[in-house]
């Protein structure tokens, strides 16, 4: 991928410039880790920015889901498994486990500056 881009850059300077901004820009997307343990999300509340990834790591003996109440996303995480989403829009999202609705979490998503 990178090799391909650098070859292109010889003939396409604007592409190289855009690539440089993405790589060296002031903010980089982060991966925020949430553990599922003892039928709870830990931490239950997180803050993130648009473009960040939230990754759930299920340490319980049963499968869980992370399901947005506004239905914008829904992922299932097997026991000892991981799964993730990329946050696409700003706002506060409440989420829960479809299988165990006593598990609840919240993500506050800020717009990227």
């Amino acid at each position: 991928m990178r090799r391909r881009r650098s070859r292109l850059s010889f003939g396409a300077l604007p592409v190289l410039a855009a690539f440089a901004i993405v790589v060296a820009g002031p903010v980089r997307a982060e991966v925020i880790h949430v553990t599922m343990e003892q039928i709870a999300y830990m931490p239950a509340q997180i803050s993130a920015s648009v473009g960040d990834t939230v990754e759930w790591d299920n340490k319980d003996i049963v499968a869980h889901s992370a399901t947005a109440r506004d239905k914008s996303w829904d992922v299932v995480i097997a026991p000892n498994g991981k799964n993730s989403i990329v946050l696409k829009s700003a706002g506060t999202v409440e989420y829960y486990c479809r299988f165990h609705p006593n598990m609840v979490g919240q993500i506050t998503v800020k717009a990227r500056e």
Partner: protein
Amino acid sequence: MRMSATHLMHTHLMHSGEPNSPRYRETPMSIRIFTRTGAAIAAICLFAGSGFAQTAAKPTDPQIAHIAYTADQIDMQAGQLALKKSKNKDVRAFASDMVRDHTAVNQKALALVKKLKVKPEDNPTSQQLSKQASDKRAELSKLNGAAFDKAYIDNEVAYHKTVNDALQNTLIPSASNQELKDLLTTGLKIFQGHQQHAEQVAAGIK
């Protein structure tokens, strides 16, 4: 179902294997009084009563393991019946969750009793649970369509409530092995989730 099973757990477990002497029945009360008064009095009562409490009021770990396994097995079978009979999407999703989760918990329980070298011991509470479950299964088997869905999900709400009450009030406090206690505690949280899920499904199919 709910009342009778809860009542059953308490009565059988409180008096199993012990004579009906008033002295035995006094023990839980002395502990209760103790918690309301000072720590010193409590400690004395606790020491004085601990022998009775253990023999008269507590199921043993092998009995607890058997009760927990039986209770799990019952709900798994109810889920399998629902998957055979129901066409309702939410009921079927719930039933398959029950089969999957209770299978996972039971596998964990079996691995633990093997590790601890505990041999699950049949007891009146397990027997009564099995008897009630087979009666309920016979009742549900005769129903179809929406009538089945409602009866199944209402029973799931009641059953999880009964089991959760028993776990919280009898089985977890009585378990002496810490790993068994931990597994029961995790089980309680899972089943509290099932109870809420069942309540949601029940509200949706009315």
